[in-house]
């Protein structure tokens, strides 16, 4: 008899309130260990594509912004290629990391990423996905990191055809995944709980 034997994934635990010590030590003034905080810079002078800023806050069930959250984003470059060994379609922009990490401001709760607008990437069946940025949110009180996506409001046609947005049964919730635009700045507020609760994914 064949027996199925797999290990179980290590279970998650909260990142806790002091996640900065390990992930962004320079941000809280613990300097001299790592030269700079990992993921703090995604672009350099040579990076191709449209520069954008993404800002926002993460709110709890009372509407209070979290002041101890940490966010990571992962996205394609401006041509729709990922800077990853698992990217099999071609070489991504060598001057773009695709990955960013930012803690929220300890007083205001605001996060801010300087990046480029991603190109479209394919869904497994070949249809294009609308340009989007993957978010991963951890904090005190969050037992397992929350996954969501940010889409772009000016991509109305692509968003309407996006296979992932198309799966949101309650159409009124699609807007929770679409940022608000002002020039090259996008605001993406995340509501963990309540009436405007952001759509989170089991990926």
């Amino acid at each position, binding site marked *: 008899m064949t027996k199925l034997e*797999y*290990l*179980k*994934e*290590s*279970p*998650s*635990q*909260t*990142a*806790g*309130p*002091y996640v*900065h*010590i*390990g*992930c962004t*030590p320079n941000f809280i003034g*613990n300097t*001299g*260990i*790592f030269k700079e905080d*990992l993921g703090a810079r995604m672009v350099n002078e040579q990076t191709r594509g449209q520069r954008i800023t993404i800002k926002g806050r993460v709110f709890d*069930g009372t509407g*209070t912004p*979290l002041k*101890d959250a940490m966010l*990571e984003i*992962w996205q394609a470059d401006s041509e729709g290629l*990922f*800077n*990853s*060994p*698992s*990217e099999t379609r071609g070489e991504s922009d060598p*001057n773009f*990391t695709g990955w960013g990490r930012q803690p929220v401001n*300890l007083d205001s709760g605001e996060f801010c990423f300087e990046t480029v607008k991603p190109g479209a*990437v394919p*869904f*497994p*069946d*070949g249809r294009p996905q609308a340009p989007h940025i*993957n978010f*991963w949110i*951890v904090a*005190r*009180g969050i*037992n*397992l990191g*929350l*996954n969501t996506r940010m889409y772009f409001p000016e991509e109305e046609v692509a968003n309407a055809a996006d296979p992932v947005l198309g*799966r949101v049964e309650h159409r009124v919730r699609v807007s929770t995944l679409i940022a608000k635009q002002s020039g090259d700045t996008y605001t993406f507020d995340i509501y*963990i*709980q309540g009436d405007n*609760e*952001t759509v*989170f994914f*089991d*990926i």
Partner: protein
Amino acid sequence: MRQGSEMSKPTTNAGPFFPRDRNWHPPALSPNYKTSVLRSPQKALLSLGNTISETTGPVFGHNMLGELDHDLVQNYAKPGESAQGERIIVHGHVLDEEAKPVPNALVEVWQANAGGRYRHKKDGYLAPLDPNFGGCGRVITDENGYYAFRTVRPGPYPWPNGVNDWRPSHIHFSLFGSGFAQRLITQMYFEGDPHIPLCPIVRTINDPAAIEMLVAKLDMNHSVPMDARAYRFDIVLRGRRSTMFENRMEGN
């Protein structure tokens, strides 16, 4: 980090990840851990089979590491000094659910000092800081998925949850595999610590076997005589399916 030639190119397969067992992981809402009450989604998660946006992820080159990044006894200490406390080595393998080693995985750790005090402006615990201990480290697994840190055993500390709640001694771990869907943050505990079964954060996990996975074992074989004891802590990340029989355009 991995820009241009710094990027490592292991021959990992690029398939979708095994689904997460969310009954094994702690649920979002675990009321005895009070902060989770207002920080847990109330609506169901939307299940999304992996797309290339989830199967890809950053991979870091070994050359991003500083010489002492994996040595918390030394990496914040003044020359000739070292951190106070029980000197330990924490080591193990990062594996996937098929027990295959995960090479080039970035492992980041952070912890309190020997007295349970964190070097963080928001920690007001009266136990003193250790001037020679910062509390953070990082390492990248080798081709066998192996990693090792040197540090001091962190102390337990009180926290404002119940009126007299204390965290067990623990080290926070953050892990990257080869895809963003593998991202994981967890905590390592120490074999035999009587605080483990009392802790509301530990007990956000329902299955005792899952809790057991987070308890590092005393490893006398790898202890360094007259210097440091060792603890063994293996970590498992999500496994990956091959892409051989994925649906293609013509199948839809």
